[in-house]
């Protein structure tokens, strides 16, 4: 059964109207009846007291003269008042002296009372009145008035109230039916609109506004709310659609990456930011003969050569911790058990916030390259060894020739004629020259080798050392050397010193008539430091700008310019070994500027220890 709360507003309104109307009418009717009853009783008491006084006064004589009949007649006059049920006169002795009893009233004389009073009893209203003669009480009159009149009035009033109630209800019911529509209809419409929205999800529905009262405000707010939701719903749909598109794009990108990875000759892998490898392309699994489940996360380490695995894991962990690129050369075991050298590289991919989202890496087979490098290294070592042996073995006899021809010149020159002395001079000079050539050749061989581990050189320090070695020549030539502050570069310091020494030495050697002015500076450009050594010397003619860098190439046979012609060849060999380049800008008689570059991260094209 529906409770009052759950019944429709229309019915609720009707019930409220009817109950309120009925209650108001009933309360009004009850009030009127109660008030009338009280007023009427008061009026009755006053009226009956007046009648009693009159009858008592008229009965004084009859009582004085003991004439009951006369008294009875007086009492009988009360017949005119139909509701007086009994009237009795008591004598001084307290006995009934005369009485009147209404014939139809089944009643007796009410008991006499000594006090004058009127009171309501169960039988009706009783009024007592003293009968006085000369101020002395000679009897008592008692009247009994039945309440039939009051009951009649009450019945009449009740009937009237009921009638009014029925009549007003009959009017109120259809009237309220009409009026309740004013309130219930907008609410019903609003409810219908809300139901429609909730059932269809269509936020474009609007409730119709029927009034300007609170309901009208409610409809307005409801519509505003719907508009708000509709707009947010639209935004949300757009966002969702964008997101779906982004997801589709990401999926496409993933597919493209997979395709790319699978079609590349290299072994490709990806890893989580924590370093767990979560993808290997087919090339990796086919090479190692291991399935994905065996190599995922850290399983790949089982394919790394036992001698390399510790350093490899350390390097990988360091990259994961720092986010720096991972570069490592290690041996990977092929399915047939043969280890092959690989270069493994991995880079961190970062999201818009700069956080690492994943690692992408590759393993490139560098076995052949590595073997070639090893062969090259051995060949270099052999060459180096040969150069030293040759230097030593050749120098010893030549030195003997040089020193002993000097001794002969010192001690036995008096035994020789002019021609003999000239020939001895040729011998001495030839020996010295051969020694210089051998030493230069050795230096040139060494210039092609990078000594020990890759180091950085303080170019300022290298220049200072070079200047110290050339101090005497600088002083002799009255030369001025100026230089800027020079950078740190990826180059062996002794090599850099050698380059400076040769270039500045040349500037001093190939000077013009004016005292040499030499200027050294450095500028960073395009990932490399470019050094320049500028002089005001004799300059170089355009056709020879390339030739001068050749081994034992000299432009001057003049005694004035001594040397073997290997200095610039050594410079070129050193500079190129570190991935740089050397050249000259000059014109005859206007001085020369030698330039050489040192890449910021020098490329080691060859490695060997001296």
């Amino acid at each position, binding site marked *: 059964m529906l409770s009052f709360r759950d019944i429709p507003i229309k019915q609720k309104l009707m019930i409220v109207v009817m109950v309120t109307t009925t209650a108001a009418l009933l309360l009004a009717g009850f009030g009127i009846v109660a008030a009338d009853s009280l007023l009427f009783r008061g009026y009755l008491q006053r009226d009956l007291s007046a009648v009693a006084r009159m009858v008592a006064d008229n009965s004084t004589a009859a009582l004085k003269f003991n004439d009951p009949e006369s008294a009875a007649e007086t009492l009988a006059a009360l017949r005119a008042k139909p509701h007086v049920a009994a009237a009795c006169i008591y004598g001084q002795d307290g006995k009934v002296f005369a009485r009147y009893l209404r014939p139809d009233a089944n009643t007796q004389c009410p008991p006499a009372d000594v006090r004058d009073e009127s009171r309501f009893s169960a039988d009706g209203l009783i009024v007592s009145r003293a009968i006085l003669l000369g101020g002395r009480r000679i009897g008592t009159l008692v009247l009994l008035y039945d309440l039939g009149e009051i009951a009649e009035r009450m019945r009449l009033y009740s009937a009237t109230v009921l009638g009014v109630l029925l009549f007003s209800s009959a009017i109120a019911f259809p009237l309220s039916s009409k009026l309740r529509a004013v309130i219930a209809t907008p609410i019903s419409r609003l409810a219908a609109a809300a139901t429609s929205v909730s059932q269809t999800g269509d936020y474009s529905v609007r409730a119709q506004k029927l009034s300007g009262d609170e309901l009208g405000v409610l409809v307005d707010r409801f519509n505003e709310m719907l508009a708000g939701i509709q707009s947010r719903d639209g935004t949300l749909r757009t966002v969702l659609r964008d997101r779906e598109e982004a997801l589709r794009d990401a999926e496409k990108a993933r597919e493209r990456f997979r395709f790319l990875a699978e079609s590349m000759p290299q072994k490709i892998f990806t890893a989580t930011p924590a370093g767990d490898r979560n993808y290997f392309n087919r090339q990796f699994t086919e090479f190692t003969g291991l399935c994905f489940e065996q190599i995922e996360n850290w399983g790949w380490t089982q394919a790394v050569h036992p001698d390399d695995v510790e350093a490899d894991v350390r390097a990988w962990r360091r990259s994961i911790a720092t986010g720096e690129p991972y570069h490592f050369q290690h041996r990977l075991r092929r399915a047939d058990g043969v280890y092959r050298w690989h270069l493994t590289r991995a880079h961190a991919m970062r999201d818009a916030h700069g956080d690492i989202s994943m690692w992408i890496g590759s393993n490139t087979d560098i076995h052949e390259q590595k073997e070639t490098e090893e062969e090259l290294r051995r060949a270099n070592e052999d060459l180096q060894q040969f150069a030293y042996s040759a230097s030593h073995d050749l*120098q*010893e006899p030549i*030195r*003997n020739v040089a*020193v002993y021809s*000097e001794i002969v010149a010192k001690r036995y020159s008096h035994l020789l004629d002019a021609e003999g002395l000239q020939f001895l001079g040729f011998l001495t000079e030839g*020996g*010295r020259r051969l*020694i210089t050539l051998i030493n230069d050749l*050795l230096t040139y061989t060494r210039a092609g080798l990078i000594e020990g581990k890759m180091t950085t050189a303080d170019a300022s320090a290298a220049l200072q050392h070079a200047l110290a070695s050339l101090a005497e020549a600088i002083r002799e030539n009255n030369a001025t050397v100026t230089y800027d502050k020079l950078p740190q570069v990826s180059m062996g310091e002794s090599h850099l010193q050698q380059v400076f020494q040769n270039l500045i030495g040349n500037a001093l050697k190939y000077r013009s008539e004016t005292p040499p002015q030499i200027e050294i500076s450095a500028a960073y450009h395009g990932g490399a430091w470019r050094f320049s050594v500028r002089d005001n010397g004799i300059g170089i003619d355009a056709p020879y700008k390339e030739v001068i860098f050749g081994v034992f190439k000299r432009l001057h046979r003049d005694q004035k310019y001594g040397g073997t012609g290997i200095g610039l060849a050594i410079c070129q060999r050193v500079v190129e070994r570190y991935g740089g380049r050397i050249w000259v800008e000059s014109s005859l008689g206007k001085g020369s500027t030698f330039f050489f570059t040192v890449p910021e991260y020098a490329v080691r094209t060859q490695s060997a220890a001296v």
Partner: protein
Amino acid sequence: MPSEPNPRLFNLVLAEDNLPDALLVREAVRLENLPLEVYIAADGERAIDLIVKAENDPNAPCPHVLLLDINLPRIDGFEVLRRVRAIDRFKAVPVVMVTSSDSPSDRKEAAKLGARYFRKPVTYDEFMKIGGLLRQLLEEQGLL
């Protein structure tokens, strides 16, 4: 030219397979007027023999200074030096490596074994400077 009689002569052992160089060392000693008797060993083995004999035979000459070429037949100069240093008595004896080599690794090895380094020069005057070096060593030893 008779040399002045010297109350005390010290012994120099020179391990050198190249006679012209050995003669130059001898000339440098003479020019510097050093109280040194020069014993020449033509290879590493003979140099060791000389030194071992000095350790065991009280009559054999006891070297006060060693000049060692590096590139010696049979046993090279560094190996000779290592064996000499292994003998308690010669742990502190002054040694000069006399060589044509300019290799940094040779210079390093010499320093490691507590030896001086003298690169053989290409002129007579330069070569004679070894005399001054020998004088300095003898003075450091309190022998002069």
